[in-house]
C-alpha cells in the first residue's frame, strides 16, 4: 500500500494518455490561435476605420471579452447553441469557437495598435511610388505589423494553453481531465497519486509553455528596432 506513488504515471498507458491530453490542449490552442490571428487582423483593420458606430461596436466586443468569464462563454456556445440554435457542436469545436472569440479580440486590439504604430510616412512612401491601397497593405504594412505582433501572439498562445483546463466542463478530455481520471481511477490503491499526477501535469504545462515564452522573448528582442 505505502508505495512510492510515482509509478501511477507509468501504469498501463497512463503517461501516453497524459501526453494525448496535452495534445488536445495544444491542438485547441493552436487552431484557435490560427483563427484568432486571421480574424484579429481583419478586426484590427476594421477598428481603425474612423467611424463612431464601428468603434463603439468593437469597444463593446472587447469589453465583453474582457469581462465575460471564459466558462460562461463555453456553456453558452456548447449548450446554448444546441438549445437555442439547434446546433450540436462537439466540445472541441465549441472550445475552439470560444477561444477564437477571445483570441480575436485580443489579437484585434494588438493589430489595431500595431497598425497605428506604423509611421504614416510608410503609407505615404508606398502611395508616392504609385502602389495602390491593397498593394501598400500587402507588401508594406502587413509584413511590418506581423513582425511587431509575433511576440504578443506567441504570448497569447501560451495563455490559451494555460486556460484550456476549463474545457473539461464541456466534456473535452484535455490534460488536466486525464490527470483527474488517473487520480480517481487509482484512488483506492494509490492515495498519493494526486501529488504525482498534478506534479506531472505542472511539469508538462511548463515544458510546453516555456519554449513558447522564450520564443516570444527572443522575437521581442530581435524585432526591437
Amino acid at each position, binding site marked *: 500500500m505505502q508505495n512510492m506513488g510515482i509509478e501511477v504515471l507509468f501504469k498501463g498507458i497512463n503517461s501516453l494518455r497524459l501526453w494525448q491530453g496535452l495534445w488536445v490542449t495544444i491542438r485547441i490552442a493552436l487552431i484557435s490561435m490560427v483563427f484568432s490571428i486571421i480574424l484579429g487582423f481583419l478586426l484590427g483593420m476594421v477598428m481603425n476605420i474612423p467611424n463612431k458606430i464601428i468603434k463603439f461596436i468593437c469597444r463593446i466586443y472587447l*469589453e465583453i471579452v*474582457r*469581462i*465575460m*468569464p471564459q*466558462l*460562461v462563454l463555453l*456553456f*453558452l456556445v456548447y*449548450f446554448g447553441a444546441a438549445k437555442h440554435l439547434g446546433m450540436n457542436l462537439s466540445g472541441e469545436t465549441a472550445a475552439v469557437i470560444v477561444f477564437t472569440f477571445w483570441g480575436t479580440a485580443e489579437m484585434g486590439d494588438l493589430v489595431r495598435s500595431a497598425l497605428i504604430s506604423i509611421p504614416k510616412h510608410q503609407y505615404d512612401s508606398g502611395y508616392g511610388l504609385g502602389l495602390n491601397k491593397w498593394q501598400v497593405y500587402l507588401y508594406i504594412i502587413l509584413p511590418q505589423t506581423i513582425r511587431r505582433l509575433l511576440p504578443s501572439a506567441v504570448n497569447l498562445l*501560451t495563455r490559451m494553453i*494555460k*486556460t484550456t*483546463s476549463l474545457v473539461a466542463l464541456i466534456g473535452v478530455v484535455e490534460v*488536466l481531465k486525464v490527470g483527474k481520471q488517473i487520480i480517481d481511477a487509482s484512488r483506492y490503491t494509490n492515495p*498519493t497519486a*494526486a*501529488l504525482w499526477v*498534478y*506534479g506531472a*501535469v*505542472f511539469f508538462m*504545462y*511548463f515544458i510546453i*509553455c*516555456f519554449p513558447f*515564452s522564450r520564443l516570444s522573448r527572443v522575437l521581442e528582442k530581435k524585432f526591437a528596432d
Partner: protein
Amino acid sequence: MDFEFIREQTPLYIEAAKLTLHMAVIGVLLAIVVGLVCSMIKYFRIPVLRQIVECYIELSRNTPLLIQLFFLYFGLPKIGIVLSSEQCAITGLTFLGGSYMAEAFRSGLDNVPPIQVESALSLGMSKSQVFTNIILPQAVSNSIPAFCANAIFLIKETSVFSAVALADLMFVTKDLIGIYYKTDEALFMLVIAYLIILLPISLICSFVERRVRYAEYGD
C-alpha cells in the same frame, strides 16, 4: 428564466462577490509588491537573487494557476505544511500575479530613456536620488497600463479558487448548477456579478491610463 430563484440566491452571490473581491484586492496588492521587489532585483542585477527571480518568473508564467493552487493546497500538506484555503488562494494569486507585475514593471523600467538618468546625474543627483525621483516615478507610470490589464486578468483568475473550496463567484455558480440545475440563472448571475466588479475597474483603469498619459507623453 426563473427570477424568483435569482432573487433568492442573490445574497449568496453578494457574499461570493465580496470574497472574490477581498481575495483579489489582497492578491493584486501583494502581487504588486512582489513584482516591484523582483523587478528591482533584476534591474540592479543582484547576483543569486536574480537567478532565483528568473526561475520564479518562468515557473509562474508558464503554468496554470489552477495547478499552482493544487500544489499549494493538496501538495504541501504531504510535507507537513497545511495552509488554509484563503492562504493558498492569496499565495497562489500572489505567486502568479507577482511574475506578471514584475514583467510589467521591468519593461516600465527599461523604457525610461538612459538620457533621463544621465541628465539627472549631471545635475549632481546621487544614484539613489536619481532612482527615487526620476526612474521610479517614470517606470511606475510607464507600467500603469500593464498593471491595470494584469489586475483585471488576476481578478478573473480568481475563478479557479473554487478548486480550493473557497466560495467565490465561480464556486457558487457551479454549486447552484450542481444542486438545482438552474444553469441559465446561475450563469446569468455570474456574468452580472463579474460585470459589476470588472466594469468599474476597467473604466477606472482607462481613466487612470489616460491621466497618466496626459501628464507624461504627448503626441
